[in-house]
């Protein structure tokens, strides 16, 4: 019988862990829906997330609710005084499955799916940036010690004493002009990459500390000594002997980081320094409803549209809970003795 490697065993344990496996499936569905869902729904209902439908909001600028048929015209019918009148009966209608997103009358469902793509891109890319920086600085600091380590440790400690959000706000306003315009069509909306890089840099202190602490405890183990004895270079020891030990804890951190990055993006949108308001993300969908830092909006019975809060919140909730559960499951699967 062939022996099974640790990854295979871990995957088996993860599959047997009912809740974590469900969470994994939910997360995969969310990712697939975010990246393909917008296009599919557009194909089904024959309009996309940027089309403006004047008839999707009423005279009080209150958006229409879920599952409404709206006249399929992007211009207003007006009477001789220029006032907007109801569309003629013969006008074809189009279906707004989750209702409209506000006075502008865009499709909430398509914006939610497209927003999920931007939010997930920001969350995942920021986690990758943070992990790259963290692994690099943390392993150098932890392995070589001395001055490098002291500098890395002090910087980490200092920066962590200051609220992360304020760093992000400062960086988004004053430093991001260079990265702001990077984007690639509608797949990667401009501003998303810049925001991801900033969030990644700002959160890289946690993986740095994690990696550093683990390398420090591992570097005096017998197997490192043995590797040194047979003449392995520092680079080889780091890459072949230390890195594999870090992977489980970094996976665990990475899953949680994607979730927190999504919430950070929501926060930046609320302060008004996130991606442009016209770009849908879960954060900008929520901040269109509730206002921003400078202008919070309170309940207004005329324009009360609960679905605009409920749908993005459920999307965020599902993603964050699923990622938390996946992280928990990965931890249990790769480290069944419960050491880390």
């Amino acid at each position: 019988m062939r022996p099974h490697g640790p990854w295979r065993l871990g995957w088996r344990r993860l599959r047997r862990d009912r809740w974590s496996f469900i969470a994994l499936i939910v997360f995969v569905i969310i990712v697939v829906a975010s990246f393909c869902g917008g296009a599919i729904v557009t194909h089904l209902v024959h309009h996309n997330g940027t089309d403006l439908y004047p008839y999707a909001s009423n005279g009080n600028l209150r958006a229409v609710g879920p599952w409404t048929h709206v006249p399929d015209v992007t211009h207003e019918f007006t009477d001789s005084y220029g006032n907007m009148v109801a569309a003629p009966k013969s006008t074809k209608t189009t279906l707004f499955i989750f209702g409209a997103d506000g006075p502008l009358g865009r499709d909430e469902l398509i914006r939610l799916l497209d927003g999920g793509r931007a939010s997930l891109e920001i969350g995942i890319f920021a986690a990758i940036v943070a992990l790259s920086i963290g692994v690099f600085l943390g392993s150098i600091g932890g392995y070589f010690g001395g001055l490098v380590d002291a500098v890395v440790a002090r910087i980490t400690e200092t920066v962590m004493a200051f609220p992360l959000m304020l760093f992000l706000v400062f960086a988004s306003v004053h430093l991001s002009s260079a990265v702001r315009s990077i984007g690639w069509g509608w797949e990667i909306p401009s501003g998303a990459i810049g925001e991801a890089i900033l969030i990644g840099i700002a959160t890289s202190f946690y993986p740095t500390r994690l990696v550093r602490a683990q390398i420090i405890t591992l570097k005096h183990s017998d197997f490192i000594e043995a590797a040194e004895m047979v003449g392995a270079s520092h680079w080889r020891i780091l890459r072949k002997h230390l890195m594999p030990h870090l992977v489980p804890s970094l996976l665990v951190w990475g899953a949680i980081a994607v979730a927190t990055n999504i919430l950070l993006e929501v926060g930046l949108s609320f302060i008004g320094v996130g991606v442009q308001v016209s770009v849908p993300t879960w954060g900008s969908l929520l901040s269109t409803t509730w206002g921003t830092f400078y202008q919070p909006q309170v309940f207004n019975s005329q324009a009360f549209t609960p679905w605009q809060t409920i749908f993005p919140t459920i999307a965020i909730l599902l993603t964050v809970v699923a990622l938390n559960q996946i992280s928990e499951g990965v931890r249990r699967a790769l480290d069944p003795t419960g050491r880390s």
Partner: protein
Amino acid sequence: MTRLLSFLVRRIAAGIFTLLALLTITFVMFWAIPSEPAVFVFPNAQHLSNQQIAQAHHYLGIDKPKTYQYFHDVGRALRFDFGSEWEWGGFGTRINALGKMAPGLPIAPGIYQDLRETLSLILGGAFFVLLFAVPLGTFAGSRVGALSDRTISLVALIGVCMHPMVLGLILRSLFGHHLHWTPEVGYCPLFTPHYHLPAGGGTGPAITGSIAAGPSLLPKPCGGLVDWASHLALPWLTFALLFLALYIRMIRASVADTLHEDYVRTARSKGASEFRVLRRHVLPNASLRILTMIGMEISTAIGVSIYIETAFGLHGLASDAVQALAGNSTLDLPYVLAVVMMLTLFVVIGNIVVDLLYAVVDPRAGRGPIHHGTKSAAGGVI
């Protein structure tokens, strides 16, 4: 006792280092990004001549060498003398016929006023987090897997996934705006009554519900314990709901682990009641983890209070910081230094207090920096 004292001295030294380092970073960052502070002296000028810029730099005291400015500014901040803002709230030309510049508002009074609001919010909120989390977490931890345990964990998770801004505005709309159970916005001091006038030059969000039209239109002065608590009840609730999930989960895990220990079995076999077992043998163990977590979450709490302050029209230090860092294209250096100083001081002092408590609670601790575990998922809520 000496051990505790030397521990305290070491922690204070580390705190002062952190404070100095952050002030230095702020100073360097300010001069590293391109900006022209002369616009503060000539607020109405379309175009500034070189002479005007030189004149403005002289007035603001930034014509001196950078090293002199560094020691001057940082030294002043460390003595809690923040000077006055560069920003000038007045109209017309700022420099009078005698060549004197009208000074900006003094920073210190406004900052202390705002610190009070943030402190009330965070300390009160933390109290409610513990008030709810300890019983619920213990209850869930002693019944792992039961329906009640799952319900508690699920409900708590919903709280953490709502953004504080959304949660706060929903609570405000429901209880403040609709049901009128509590005042909707604003802050009332605990001790001296005041009018709802924005303090510190009115740099806060213009939603404080304040009426600045004239003395006759001013609302009744408010202050005292009842007014203070009723104004802060909803912010506290928001704060507590956000952090509840993490603390419940952590206490639950700790309690569930400890219940299998030998000394718990011993206590039970000696006939101790279930309540006594939990209170005397299980919870003290969890309290160490709670302390560690509080220590790590202080800066997160400041991040969260940005949104809670915004949602409830409070005018605290956290929203000041956002305005100072994001509001203008040119940063107001004295004000930014003051805000950074106060926020860092808050985090540093909070950490020292937590570490001291830790050393008191756990006789083994106090031999080094106490930082085990990683920062929790709440880091993102901010």
